[in-house]
């Protein structure tokens, strides 16, 4: 691929990505009344999308071969337990991430 072709390819990816980000704001501009159903989705999607992001961030976990997603499962459970117990975001993130790093670098290396 030539440099020009790479630039065109990157521009196409930028255009596609930005279309997905801008389209709701173009279809439902501030000066027009947003349909009730879209308003409703706007109230519920912030929660549904967080659930989606949890799964999305774990999508490359392989469950059919060693280590069968065990490090991810342990680390997620640890985050839940520590956060439920202490309600301290930084502590929960540190506990889960450090546990995960130790597990994949030593126990499941």
């Amino acid at each position, binding site marked *: 691929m030539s440099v020009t072709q790479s630039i065109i390819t990157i521009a196409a990816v930028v255009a596609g990505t930005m279309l997905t980000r*801008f389209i709701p704001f173009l279809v439902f501009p501030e000066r027009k009344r947003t349909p009730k159903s879209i308003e409703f989705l706007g109230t519920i999607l912030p929660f549904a999308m967080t659930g989606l992001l949890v799964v999305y961030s774990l999508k490359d976990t392989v469950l059919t071969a060693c280590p069968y997603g065990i490090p991810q499962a342990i680390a997620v459970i640890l985050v839940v337990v520590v956060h439920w117990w202490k309600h301290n975001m930084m502590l929960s993130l540190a506990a889960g991430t450090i546990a995960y790093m130790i597990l994949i670098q030593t126990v499941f290396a």
Partner: protein
Amino acid sequence: MRLFDKARHPWLAAFRAAFPLTAPVGLGFLFLGCSYGMLMGVHGFSVLYPLCMSALIFAGSMEFVTVSLLLSPFDPIAAFTLAIMVNARHMFYGIAMLPRFAETGWIKPLLIYGLCDETFALHVSTVAPQGIDEKKFMLATTLLNQAYWVSSSTLGGLIGARLPQHTEGLQFVLTALFVVIAMDQWRAQAVAGRTGIILGLVVTTVCLVIFGSAQFMIPALLGIVLLCLALRSRLEQA
């Protein structure tokens, strides 16, 4: 003693308030951005590529996909379509942010441009601390996250070799962040919000199992929207 006057330096105050909240994202991006920059370096691309692509595309997973697009035969239409498919979830972030971004004036395009997964997750889980302007706070969050990503990708492109030892697994901080945000939302919400979280978790998991990790996003998004609309009357009463 006050270091500076919040009222006289509202932008500085907004960035200072946003920084600790964005720090975990910065840590996750350091690993992912570096990995992406190094992947480009390994394939012989100059550091300008990760620099420009991370700033302009600013969608992590799509940038990894773009590396393989650049190594394949030239097909810009396919690249455009693929970008829409991979990033379809952004449309739903936009719908969720319609009220939040209303009346933000000139910063609105910047907020939309930088609405990546992590920035969206911070927007739905945080409000500006007292004395800090909400719009400036949201823009500070957006720009800090974008700066972390661009600088990490560029750093990776410059290193171009192997990551330092013992950094493997650092990207888990982003998963942990989403889990913590979901738990905080759960605690703060009544039945409707909690149902939303469960729908997101369950529908996405089911679609991942059925369609596999390359194909599950579009069915998951459609499933979530359709189920939300189907449960609308119940959720609005709840």
